[in-house]
């Protein structure tokens, strides 16, 4: 087969390079650039500073002695060179001595007062020196650096606490570091950028515009429409998925012969990514359904036209999306319900059978209260994933088909009734489009923050409400 083109080698240097880089990032860089230098610098610096502190006073003390020695040396030299000069000098010296003695006698009274003053200044000077040394973290009497001492007792030293702290940091840094760098930092940046006129092209030259972005998005009928559509979609989706999943779980927990096969089979679509599923269903909706329609001679609704290309109506698109997501997600939620249903004690059900309860009564009075906790979890999961839905929609219709704006919204937002909207323009897609198609990063970020707040409120409200219900049941 010559027409098969040459493949790129799957195993090339890239993997080696990658492993090497991983090694560098995880082990070598923290070790070489953080830990070892810190320890090294701490020890060397503390010793050097200790040396300086001890050496400087000695040096200062040595200066007068040094001058004395040198001057004596020169005096001797002069004496040897000019012997007569010695006699003249000694005469002068004796004169001076006598004068000094007189002066001394006169002063003696004042000296005691002067001593007090000197002591006072010495005290103040000492305190100033202490304060300065505290400021620069050098403790002159203990002969060690306060900061380095702190580091030594708590991080770099050999004490047990220091070792524990070291391992604490070492074990925490990879997870906390990447979490801080790639989640917390962008989140905080995002909060800031939502108040600027960031467009993606003016990086570094953004201007803070206050709440302008937020007021823009709430007067933007596309965003309001997408919020309405997302809410509608989420509510319908949560209902459909949970009803389907719970009935599937009820079916599969019966004493069936192939029940494990059913469980695995219903679960299978959940394994395949939303993007790939979207393409599969786009094919089904655009090609297979119309073909079925022509085959059975019933050409209406989704059976008469393709989902993409502007033929479908907005409600059809919504229905199609919900069907796909329910098909994908019901198996997973079913597994949660199965786990809950298996915990329902069989003797309770037997007893209710003997008491003459029918299937519906059993479901209502025994099973529902006992699986209430599973309902909380399943509702929360489906709600959050519905709000976050992105890849399935992107591959299924790309956010389309476009439709006219609903009349009530046109009235509220005060836009012409012929304004066009995308019927599956969910909030996630709206954010993505705003940022990457219109290059309005600041507005997109503001939308994202609003999206986050909505998600937070909805999630918290749902969980608290369900837990209340749980207690009531």
């Amino acid at each position, binding site marked *: 087969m010559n027409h*098969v083109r040459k*493949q*790129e080698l799957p195993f090339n240097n890239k993997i080696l390079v*990658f492993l090497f*880089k*991983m090694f560098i990032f*995880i082990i070598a860089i923290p070790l070489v650039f953080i830990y070892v230098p810190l320890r090294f610098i701490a020890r060397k610096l503390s010793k050097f500073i200790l040396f300086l502190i001890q050496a400087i006073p000695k040096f200062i003390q040595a200066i007068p002695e040094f001058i004395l020695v040198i001057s004596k040396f020169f005096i001797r030299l002069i004496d040897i060179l000019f012997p007569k000069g010695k006699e003249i000098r000694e005469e002068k010296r004796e004169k001076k001595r006598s004068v000094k003695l007189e002066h001394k006698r006169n002063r003696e009274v004042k000296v005691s007062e002067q001593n007090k003053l000197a002591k006072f200044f010495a005290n103040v000077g000492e305190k100033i020196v202490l304060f300065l040394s505290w400021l620069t973290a050098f403790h002159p009497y203990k002969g060690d650096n306060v900061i380095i001492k702190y580091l030594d007792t708590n991080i770099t030293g050999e004490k047990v606490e220091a070792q*524990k702290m070291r391992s604490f940091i070492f*074990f*925490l840094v990879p*997870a*906390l570091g*990447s*979490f801080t*760098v*790639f989640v917390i930092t962008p*989140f905080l*940046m995002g909060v800031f*950028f939502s108040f600027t006129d960031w467009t993606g092209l003016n990086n570094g030259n953004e201007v803070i515009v206050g709440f302008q972005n937020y007021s823009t998005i709430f007067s933007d009928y596309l965003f309001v429409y997408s919020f309405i559509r997302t809410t509608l979609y989420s509510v319908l989706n949560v209902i459909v998925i949970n009803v389907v999943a719970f009935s599937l779980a009820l*079916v599969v927990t*019966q004493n*069936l*012969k192939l029940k494990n096969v*059913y469980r695995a*089979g*219903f679960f299978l*679509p*959940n*394994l*395949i*990514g*939303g*993007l*790939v599923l979207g*393409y*599969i269903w786009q094919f*089904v909706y655009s*090609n*297979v359904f119309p*073909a079925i329609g022509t*085959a059975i001679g019933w050409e209406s609704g989704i059976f008469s036209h393709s989902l993409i290309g502007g033929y479908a109506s907005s409600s059809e698109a919504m229905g199609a999306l919900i069907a796909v997501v329910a098909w994908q997600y019901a198996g*997973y939620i079913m*597994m*949660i319900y199965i786990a809950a249903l298996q915990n329902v004690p069989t003797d309770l059900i037997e007893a209710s059978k003997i008491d003459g309860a029918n299937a519906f009564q059993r479901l209502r009075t025994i099973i529902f209260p006992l699986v209430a906790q599973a309902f909380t979890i399943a509702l929360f999961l489906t709600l959050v994933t519905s709000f*976050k839905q*992105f*890849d399935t929609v*992107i*591959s299924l219709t790309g956010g389309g088909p476009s439709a006219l704006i609903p009349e009530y919204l046109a009235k509220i937002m005060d836009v012409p009734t012929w304004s066009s909207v995308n019927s599956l323009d969910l909030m*996630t897609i709206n*954010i*993505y489009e705003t*940022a990457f198609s219109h290059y309005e*990063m600041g507005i997109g*970020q503001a939308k*994202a*923050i609003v999206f*986050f707040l909505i*998600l*937070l409120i909805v999630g918290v409200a749902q969980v608290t409400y369900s837990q209340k219900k749980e207690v009531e049941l």
Partner: protein
Amino acid sequence: MNRDKIGLIIIEIFAFLLLVLFFLPFALVILNATKTAVEITTDPLAFAKDAGTFWKNITNIMTSEQIRYWNSFLNSIIITSGSLIAIGIFSGMAAWVLVRTKKRYSHIIFVIFLSGMVIPFQVVMLPLVRLLEAISVNVGIPMKDTYYGVILIYVGFGAPLSVFMFHGFIKSIPMDIEEAAIIDGCSRSQLFFRIILPILKPIFVTLLVLNGLWIWNDYLLPLLVIGMSGDVRTLPLAVANLAGAYIRQWDLLLTSVLLAAIPVVVLFLFAQKFIIKGMTSGAIK
């Protein structure tokens, strides 16, 4: 008794029909992956005229520049497995020291981790892209379109849930084991890697499944961090790239969809028990 049996049989038939309905889309994909583009557009329900078309479609996908199947497949495997191992070990480490260090700051750090669970990716994505560019410009380490960059980002996004789950589990491990190991002369790192990590295995498997499915199927994060035509692009990106280029070439697209779905399905058939257990216990926790 008899009535119950009849009821069971009816339910069995009903479940079987549902199963068939659930598998219909897959069947349609397989059916149409064996046909040429013309055959698909004329009648998507008919069988293929020539079985050799299937092989031809597959070789087309394998040699297609748009999808570069083996390359993308390998990238997906490297990124997924690398991220899984990194997330598991790193967040296990973090959770362990957070549980065992009973100080106020460890509690604060744990709460910070928990807050990460409520942040949706959409809030973070725009600044993240900018941050990655800033890192590559200012620090000189390219983070976009590299294995380690993607893996580190996945560690960041996967850490909250994993740390939370490990945290809950490690609390139940008695301290006696660790004390015994310390008396026997274990260092702190040996203590974690030889004693604690083996005990964490059940949670590790759960996280492997949860994070593995998420990372393998993720589309938006790789789209932003790697790019549609990046060097280390994953399978979903490759499929999206092909779909963007050949939106009407259903034969190629369906074959690529099939090839993208097969690895996970095969893995599921082998590790069904673990996957279902992992997914459910993960959700309930």
